[in-house]
């Protein structure tokens, strides 16, 4: 039992509740408290990362109920990595938000912190039904955040997003029910033990349940047939929200990694590698679809939103190998893509603010102010996202390419990923050269002021790409350890025998 595990959940929960009651407090007070909460969450996440790096599993059992009977929080390297990644992204998005996005709604900070709460529960929980609850918490906060802002452009994409996710929740519940009806447990560690022992006649039920879970996680992660809601929803959201949502698809990917390596991994007998043969082709088609979307994007935000789908395809292709090398390469890429895409959303918004009525559309417009600063940020973001040297995207994609083993995998992955990257490069160069270089005569009246909170947060997120390159050694070491820990599922199931408070001797 380690009480630190509750910190990333309790801090945003308490901060969010405070914000809910402070709607009429002065905005500076609300901002200070909100930022303090996010900083504390980041501190807690870093503490957990240091704790988790010894490679052991830490368990917090709610109400001191011995698992599998109670709900448990489980901290391992993967959970800690996701927590830190989310907290870093959230902090910079939050700093960007206090630059003016939070002004027209009293509950923005509350929703933002509840979103963090839901994300952190999803990463820490060791129970399948609790994962469902975490998804609902983060979704209901995301519905509010997505609708945040002036104007009516968000209503219809928001409605689509909500209805799709409600249908997804229904499918999640059906699959949870199917798995429970056969195994009699929803604790992930217990499921990892019970699934190989399922009787022959009940296997189809578990298999159907497992595949339906893949559909749900695929909807969250925006895999191809389920990805068309994403571009319009993300492109219409306000910038800090869209940037924070860069981590939302990664929750689906986290759930796929967690559930399919633990419950349907190599030791799962008949059900080993369930769904993974579907995942590889789907991932490659998703990647190609993202590239096509990026080439056809009419605005910078749409372009970045399609980049989210490209990165989902790239990540899942590496994960679907089910090997330590594939997973560790995916985790390295995950850090890079989440932060850079978040940063690119912020940069697109900054460009939008400088171009008057042209907005972030990829059309010629009068020369923008602060062109050097913004174009350098965009260039760095694009280089990191496409995967050109010297920024982190290059090393991440190199690791992913190297993780393919069999000949057909190599042929498919290398050709799709490399050709896809080339066309993404064309999409970014086209967008960048039209927006920054091809200017027409004219003068833009109203310009958004580049306040420190806006420019610092956007440039910080983009330059995290440099940080990843500088710290590439420790980060890839951590990613490899994480992947090794994930694929050794026998250690995870040890949490069932962890002593409760009062039993320790």
């Amino acid at each position, binding site marked *: 039992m380690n009480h630190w595990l509750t910190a990333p959940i309790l801090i945003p929960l308490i901060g969010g509740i405070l914000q809910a009651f402070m709607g009429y407090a002065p905005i500076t007070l609300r901002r200070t408290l909100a930022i303090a909460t996010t900083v504390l969450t980041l501190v807690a996440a870093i503490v957990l990362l240091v704790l988790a790096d010894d490679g052991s599993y830490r368990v917090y059992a709610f109400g001191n109920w011995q698992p599998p009977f109670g709900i448990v929080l489980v901290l391992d390297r993967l959970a800690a990595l996701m927590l830190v990644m989310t907290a870093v992204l959230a902090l910079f998005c939050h700093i960007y938000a206090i630059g003016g996005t939070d002004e027209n709604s009293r509950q923005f900070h509350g929703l933002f912190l509840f979103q963090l709460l839901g994300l952190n529960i999803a990463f820490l929980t060791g129970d399948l039904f609790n994962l469902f609850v975490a998804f609902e918490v983060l979704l209901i906060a995301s519905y509010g955040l997505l*609708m945040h802002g002036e104007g009516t452009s968000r209503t*219809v994409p928001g409605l689509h997003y*909500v*209805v799709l996710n409600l*249908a997804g929740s229904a499918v999640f519940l*059906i699959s949870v*029910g199917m798995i429970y009806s056969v195994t009699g447990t929803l604790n992930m560690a217990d499921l990892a033990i019970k699934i190989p022992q399922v009787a022959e006649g009940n296997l189809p039920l578990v298999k159907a349940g497992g595949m339906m879970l893949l559909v749900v996680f695929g909807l969250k992660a925006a895999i191809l047939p389920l990805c068309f809601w994403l571009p319009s929803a993300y492109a219409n959201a306000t910038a800090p929200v869209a940037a924070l949502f860069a981590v939302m698809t990664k929750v689906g990917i986290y759930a796929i990694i967690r559930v399919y390596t633990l419950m349907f991994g190599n030791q799962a007998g008949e059900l080993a590698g369930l769904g993974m043969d579907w995942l590889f082709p789907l991932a490659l088609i998703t990647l190609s679809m993202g590239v096509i979307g990026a080439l056809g994007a009419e605005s910078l935000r749409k372009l970045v939103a399609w980049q989210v789908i490209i990165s989902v395809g790239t990540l899942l292709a590496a994960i679907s190998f089910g090997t330590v090398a594939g997973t560790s390469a995916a985790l390295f890429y995950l850090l890079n893509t989440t932060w850079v895409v978040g940063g690119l959303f912020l940069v697109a918004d900054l460009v939008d603010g400088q171009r008057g009525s042209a907005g972030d559309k990829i059309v010629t417009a009068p020369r923008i102010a602060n062109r050097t600063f913004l174009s350098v940020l965009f260039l760095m973001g694009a280089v990191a996202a496409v995967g050109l040297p010297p920024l982190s995207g290059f090393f991440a994609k190199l690791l992913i390419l190297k993780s393919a083993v069999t000949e057909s995998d190599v042929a498919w992955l290398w050709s799709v990923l490399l050709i896809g990257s080339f066309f993404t490069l064309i999409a970014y160069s086209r967008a960048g050269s039209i927006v920054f270089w091809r200017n027409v005569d004219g003068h833009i009246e109203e310009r958004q002021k580049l306040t420190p909170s806006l420019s610092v947060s956007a440039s910080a997120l983009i330059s995290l790409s440099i940080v990843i390159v500088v710290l590439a050694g420790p980060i890839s070491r951590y990613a490899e350890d994480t992947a090794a820990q994930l694929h050794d599922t026998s250690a995870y199931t040890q949490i069932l025998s962890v002593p409760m408070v009062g039993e320790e001797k």
Partner: protein
Amino acid sequence: MELAFAVVIGVLTASGVYLMLRARTFPVVVGLTMLSYGVNLFLFSSGRLATGGQPIIGSAETYSDPLPQALVLTAIVIGFAMTAFVVVLSLRSLADSDDDHVNGRIPEQDNARQEQEDAK
């Protein structure tokens, strides 16, 4: 009882899915509600159907599994909140776009408008 239960779940889910595929927001919301009813019943049945069983060991000869009941309760609460939200959202969509089509506008009208503009 099993047959009746299964038929009810099947009918609820089928009507829910059918209504969700409609083009107006109101049928979609009703469809989502019916789907969640069907799902709740399904979740309840994952603890096996039994009569006279209590979820406390020793209080009756047969006891029923309390966990699906707890899961259903959670799912009902969450589903209720989500339905309330989606009702408000579809009302806002109706107010914002003066139409209750799920895309905010009817595609044919869009085409007609486009043709008019082209004719000019």
